[in-house]
């Protein structure tokens, strides 16, 4: 058997665009199989990948959890999760193939015996199903267990790849809760796994619309010439959620929405929006540009005037009476955790000097919406009577990340009639309406990239640390000054956020 490198596969041809990338033989070991993420996203995504023919023959999935389960029980859980949440239609054949490769190893993270059993199990899969000794470990568990698990993986020899095989470890946010803890977490992982085999999942980066930011900017000639301080007045990046914290009180309280959302999702969106053109779309080039622009982010001197945090109080959200944050189960009555955060930052580059970036996120807001909006300067001269353009706002280019994925352009147009009256109109490009059935879930894309070993969509440790460097001073300031302002559930956040914009002579877009 020739096991040497074979760089040229004669059946592959760059012109052959019909052939998708398919993962090589491997086992995915899933820690935390009973969690929400695993049931709602990961297991369905694995099925969808199988259904699309993107998983290799013999692909195997091993669940590990503290349950007294047989393989059959885990298969049942997976079956139910797939039936309920999978994007693609349920096919008995595909499921049967997949189910044969689904195994379960019961155990706790502190039990070396359980990890030895796990090692035996994957080895057996290599022999029975030809998975080639390639293992990806998906840690869908709270970060406090990471240390224990990776050390057990090392002790049991699972983390050591044999000649010609690979090991990968996948972790989800949060990547720490500040710079120090992020570095500590990283050190724990690095003790056992090298950086190139660590895949940090920020599921936003797997979304089609987020990837489309790069296509929109760098594949077109229409936008890039105006994508700078000469034309852009300011940028608003928003992630609004209509839900409260639900059952996540234990995780959320003390962390807050700034750490939960701004540090990863919003700063990643900022990086993609503000970065310079990478020399290529190779992982290293894209990450280098992202790191560059993140390192150029500057916080305002007066944090008090340029940051806002809030907490939702009881109110009516979308026709339903909902509780305030303090009344949520498991939240201490004196909690100062933010459920809304808005921050102004600047990007110190030639392209963006003097163009503020406003980031905001919140829970229990009026509507669920994530978008990046570039708001343009007003025309330098309007050859119309002032009364004609009273209703004309600023032009905007909006990348709608979710829902209704797409792009909106807002510009002025003449109102039909005898007078010259100009009013804002919207021009929409809609992914959501027509492409939803075909566009894969973010997790499908990301899982496949992990199994193939394709890193561009995963943030590097450097980006994580740069993001914490941006957020840490804000969190420190908040710790020492004041407390979150209350806002009514179902509204668009605290008044202070509107006042913050008004001081700059601007206003939030109403979403």
């Amino acid at each position, binding site marked *: 058997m*020739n096991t040497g*490198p*074979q760089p*040229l596969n004669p059946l592959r041809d760059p012109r052959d665009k*019909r052939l*998708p990338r*398919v993962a090589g033989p491997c086992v995915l070991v899933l820690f935390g199989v009973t969690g929400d993420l695993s049931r709602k996203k990961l297991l369905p995504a694995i099925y969808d990948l199988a259904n699309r*023919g993107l998983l290799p023959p013999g*692909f195997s999935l091993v669940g590990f959890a503290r349950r007294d389960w047989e393989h059959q029980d885990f298969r049942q859980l997976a079956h139910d999760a797939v039936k309920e949440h999978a994007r693609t239609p349920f*096919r008995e054949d595909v499921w049967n193939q997949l189910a044969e490769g689904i195994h379960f190893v019961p155990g706790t993270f502190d039990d070396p015996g359980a990890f030895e059993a796990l090692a035996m199990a994957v080895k057996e899969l290599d022999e029975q199903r030809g998975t080639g000794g390639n293992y990806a470990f998906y840690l869908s568990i709270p970060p406090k267990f990471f240390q224990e698990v990776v050390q057990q993986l090392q002790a049991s020899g699972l983390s050591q790849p044999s000649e010609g095989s690979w090991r990968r470890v996948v972790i989800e946010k949060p990547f720490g809760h500040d710079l120090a803890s992020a570095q500590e977490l990283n050190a724990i992982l690095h003790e056992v796994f090298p950086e190139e085999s660590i895949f940090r999942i920020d599921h936003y980066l797997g979304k089609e619309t987020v990837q489309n930011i790069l296509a929109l900017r760098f594949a077109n000639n229409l936008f890039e010439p105006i994508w700078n301080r000469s034309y852009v007045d300011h940028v608003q990046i928003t992630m609004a959620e209509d839900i409260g914290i639900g059952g996540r009180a234990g995780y959320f309280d003390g962390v807050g929405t700034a750490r939960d959302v701004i540090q990863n999702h919003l700063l990643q969106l900022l990086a993609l929006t503000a970065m310079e053109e990478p020399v290529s779309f190779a992982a290293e080039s894209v990450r280098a540009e992202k790191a560059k622009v993140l390192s150029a982010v500057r916080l305002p001197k007066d944090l008090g005037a340029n940051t806002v945090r809030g907490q939702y109080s009881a109110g009516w959200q979308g026709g339903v009476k909902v509780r305030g944050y303090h009344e949520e189960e498991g939240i201490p009555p004196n909690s100062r955790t933010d459920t809304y955060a808005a921050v102004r930052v600047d990007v110190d580059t030639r392209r963006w000097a003097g163009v503020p970036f406003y980031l905001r996120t919140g829970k229990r807001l009026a509507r669920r919406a994530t978008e990046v909006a570039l708001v343009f300067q007003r025309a330098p001269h309007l050859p119309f009577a002032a009364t004609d353009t009273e209703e004309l706002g600023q032009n905007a280019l909006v990348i709608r990340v979710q829902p209704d994925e797409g792009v909106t352009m807002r510009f002025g147009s003449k109102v039909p009639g005898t007078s010259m009256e100009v009013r804002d109109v919207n021009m929409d490009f809609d992914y959501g309406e027509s492409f939803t059935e075909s566009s894969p879930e973010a997790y499908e894309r990301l899982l496949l990239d992990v199994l193939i070993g394709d890193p561009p969509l995963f943030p590097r440790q450097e980006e994580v640390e740069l993001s914490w460097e941006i957020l840490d001073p804000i969190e420190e300031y908040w710790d020492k000054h004041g407390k979150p302002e209350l806002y009514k559930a179902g509204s668009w956040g605290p008044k202070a956020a509107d006042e913050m914009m008004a001081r700059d002579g601007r206003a939030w877009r109403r979403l």
Partner: protein
Amino acid sequence: MNIDLTNTTTRKVLDALSAARHRMGGPATGKVLTLVVLTEEASQYDAVRASTEAAREHPCRIIVVIGRSPHGESRLDAEVRVGETGPGETVVLRLYGQLIEHADSVVLPLLVPDTPVVAWWPGIAPDKPAEEALGALAQRRVTDARGGSDPLGTLKKLAEAYEPGDTDFAWTRITGWRTLLAATLDQPHDDITGARVEADPHNPSAALLAAWLSDRLAVPCTVTESHGPGITGVRLTTTVGDIAITRPDGRVATLSRPEQPDRQVALHRRPTSELLAEELRRLDPDEVYRDAVLRFAKGLDGPAQTTPEAEEAGGEAEAGGGAAKGGGAAGKTTEAAAAPAKAPRGGRGKKS
């Protein structure tokens, strides 16, 4: 909304389309292409259904052109459907009399401006798609060799008339097989010396798959007959044994490699709508299809394309090299294509 227009003109059809759009309140955005379906009354229902399904992935205007009786007076009947079954718009045109000869004059004004046009013949393929009046309007011309009674003969004609932008469902149907084969060869393997495709008789997809393998691997590749359904197996002969993918039931494939356990994977046969959706995904010429179909045409000389027994084909090929049997019809097997003289042993697979 459904609008029927009898004895009409394209002008009235366009008016009906925009009136329907206005009344639905939907803007004219999002149509990425025009799909022209050339079909007959009997098969229009299935063709429209498949197109509408595919339009969910590729929002488009579907123009169905049905030729009715060529005798009698020229007449155009149209049926406009907007927002009935999915995104996009469907116009069903029925042509009578002499107008059938001038279908392009009806279709041309109805194309969505400044977007690609795809022509699809779900039934019998024309001899020269690119020279058809409606084929010439299109960037992509999609035929189905299986639509007629002589699939292999049709495919050969299509190969001879190939113009950039042509493709055939016989090719689309094997994307799953090709994906699996390519993924298989992503893994380390020994030198491949021959290949064999097993399929039910007169299967144009099997012929194309064999031609593709032969072209890419530079080894002789034969097609042998099985009981189907469709393609039932592909066998790549290597120096230490066969890499085989078998799919006896049309649903689940088994991958066997020397010294490795068998692995199974679902490999189902796809419905027309999915094939069409795949075709609409790329609108540039498919050069890999061109290479495969030309190779197929080159190696196909006699009328007997497949024979039931071809067990020794792989061995023969290794011993003799393909060049000597370029004619293909010699002996009991027909080679889908002759192996080129310069690399008879599949040297491209291994560089180390």
